[in-house]
């Protein structure tokens, strides 16, 4: 009878295997020159963490680690021929990641370093738009390093009409902001920088540090694009921030109880992303769909949206919808109104 004792274990192992994502995690590390990015990169490559990391770097020759698998990438932004104006991908990354995956037994994870001038959207969109990449790799998080002493100056930099402020964009896209060099500024400056970051990207987790000395698990195992973990580790999800600066890039968080009409939600979200997708950098949410026993979780980059049903709503749990948009010129009132109209109960009133 001892043979049967293994049966329950086998079941558990089976369930565990189902939960484990076998894809190779990819971290995007971005930040301006002087933010401490190279210091962090070198730490990640030299520290004893038992992980083998392949690095794709944009600034050639920065990392000089023997035996490290380091590949050089020159930014090649490709438009997709699908009529979607903001659907750009990074051709260089598709090419390099494709070649790397043929050597996948050589490393456990991939780190993509981009320059402070790179647009994060095509980088993130590459993981949505290329099936081969999406099936073998998962974007873990976009980590943005900022220099506490200089970031405000970058954020305030006046750009000509139609030109993006890259510092703003990089913070808007970030899942983690590593606020580096806090030893070089006083507490008031740190508070100001954090407030500025929060206006742009309300849910982002900010990690204060010096000499890029951040705990690696806080930047390497984030699961920010993992639908199971959407919003889970974002305590500041709906924290209202004071609008003390005239910024065009902000976050709009919406929290609303009740069940949503699926058709109206699809119509609203579809229309919103089609018409405003260029300005909506990132979106994520957990929603209660009428008639569905499970939470619907989604996250998106510009017009691209990835969603699926997550865990069951618990017995007696408040059916609370939570979503956040980070973008340019967001109209909070219109978003709130549009979303409220998706409530199943709103149909009767209309």
């Amino acid at each position, binding site marked *: 009878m001892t043979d049967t004792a293994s049966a329950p274990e086998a079941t558990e192992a089976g369930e565990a295997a189902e939960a484990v994502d076998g894809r190779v995690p990819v971290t995007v590390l971005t930040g301006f020159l002087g933010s401490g990015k190279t210091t962090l990169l070198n730490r990640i490559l030299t520290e004893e963490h038992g992980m083998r990391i392949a690095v794709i770097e944009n600034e050639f020759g920065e990392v000089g680690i023997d035996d490290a698998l380091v*590949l*050089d990438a*020159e930014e*090649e932004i*490709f*438009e*997709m*021929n*699908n009529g979607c104006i903001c659907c750009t*991908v990074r*051709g*260089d990354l*598709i*090419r*390099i990641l494709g*070649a790397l995956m*043929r*050597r996948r*037994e050589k490393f456990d994870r991939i780190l993509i370093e981009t320059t402070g001038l790179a647009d994060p959207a095509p980088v993130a969109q590459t993981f949505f738009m*290329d*099936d*081969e990449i999406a099936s073998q790799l998962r974007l873990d998080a976009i980590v943005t390093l900022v220099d506490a002493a200089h970031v405000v100056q970058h954020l305030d930099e006046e750009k000509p009409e139609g030109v993006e402020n890259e510092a703003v964009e990089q913070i808007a896209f970030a899942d983690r902001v590593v606020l580096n060099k806090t030893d070089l500024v006083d507490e008031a400056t740190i508070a100001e920088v954090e407030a500025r970051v929060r206006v742009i990207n309300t849910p982002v987790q900010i990690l204060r540090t010096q000499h890029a000395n951040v705990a690696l698990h806080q930047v390497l195992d984030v699961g920010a694009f993992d639908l199971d973990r959407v919003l889970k580790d974002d305590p500041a999800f709906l924290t209202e921030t004071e609008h003390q600066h005239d910024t065009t890039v902000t976050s709009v968080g919406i929290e609303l109880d009740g069940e949503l009409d699926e058709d109206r939600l699809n119509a609203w979200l579809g229309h919103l992303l089609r018409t405003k997708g260029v300005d909506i950098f990132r979106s994520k949410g957990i929603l209660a769909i009428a008639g569905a026993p499970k939470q619907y979780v989604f996250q998106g980059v510009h017009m691209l949206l990835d969603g699926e049903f997550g865990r069951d709503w618990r017995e007696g749990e408040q059916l609370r919808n939570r979503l956040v948009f980070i973008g340019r010129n967001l109209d909070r009132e219109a978003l709130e109104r549009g979303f409220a109209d998706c409530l199943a109960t709103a149909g009767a009133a209309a």
Partner: protein
Amino acid sequence: MSVTAPDQALAVAWEIRIDDAPVALSARGDLVAVAGAEGAVRVLDAAMGAEMGALDLPGGALDVELAPDARHLAVTGPLGYALWRRDDGCTTVRESGAWSAAAAWADGSKVAVASGRRALVLDADGAELWRTEPAASTVTDLAWMRQGRRLAVAAYGAVCCHERHTEKPVVTYPYIGSHLALAVAPTGRWICSGNQDASIHIWRTRDASELTMSGYPEKVSRLAFDESGFWLAADGAPDVTVWDFSGKGPVGTAPRSLRCHETITALAWRPGAAGHLASGGDDGTVALWHATAGRPESRLRPARELDGDGSAVAALAWAGPHLLVTAHRDGRVRAYGVPSRNAL
């Protein structure tokens, strides 16, 4: 009941293992060459699998091509390229640091290699004969036309055709999007590119008229014309699609669909046998097809399936009509005898 396996299994002529994950195969004359992801290249005798030469390309390999006369070899990779000469085993390595995605021999004396955003045309010993101006992106694929006088270069936004006398293209075939694979019909009538946006774009060379075959579920990164130039095989879906390019071409037609693999990883037409195609999948299966049988829109079943022991097929090549070489990710390179010219 098995619908596919004929009574007799194909005999394995030889099998070797390389200490690298194969990425590309080439077969010409009496030689077979295999290149691995880490840059190991082995040149083998096609009949026996005996090693005839070896070299290493630092930084890894992406493509390997034997010259038509089997006297020279070019291997390309993420950090450069290398040439090998059969007579004395002499190897010339160029670590340029530039991404070199593909090589294509015009004849035994001239080879084009992609090098970053340019294509370089070299003599068989590696001396540069001419080069193209930089394309809009890193060059993704190359093909010779007009008996080696014109070179087609695929990159982002266009396929550009170059000739020796000028760095600038002599003809540009623009199409927005990233062209991942290039195939030129041996008749010279058609240029086809497989695209990141899940389509095949086609130009008729006579008048540059265009056609797009869209609706693929995935990007199209493998295209292959058979030696007649009448048939084009493509990936981009779980099914291999086979388009009829005879007569007026594929306008208004539907392809034949070959269903066997989940993900296609290799395609190779059998030389000297009309319509015989080999395809490989990431589950390790190799399928052999009468790919042009039936009517357009037919869904075909393999004439034969070869079990790859579960290791993904990395590349396929025919060393003449009677020997099919398969390379698997686990390092195995295997040759099957295919005795009948008419059957598979």
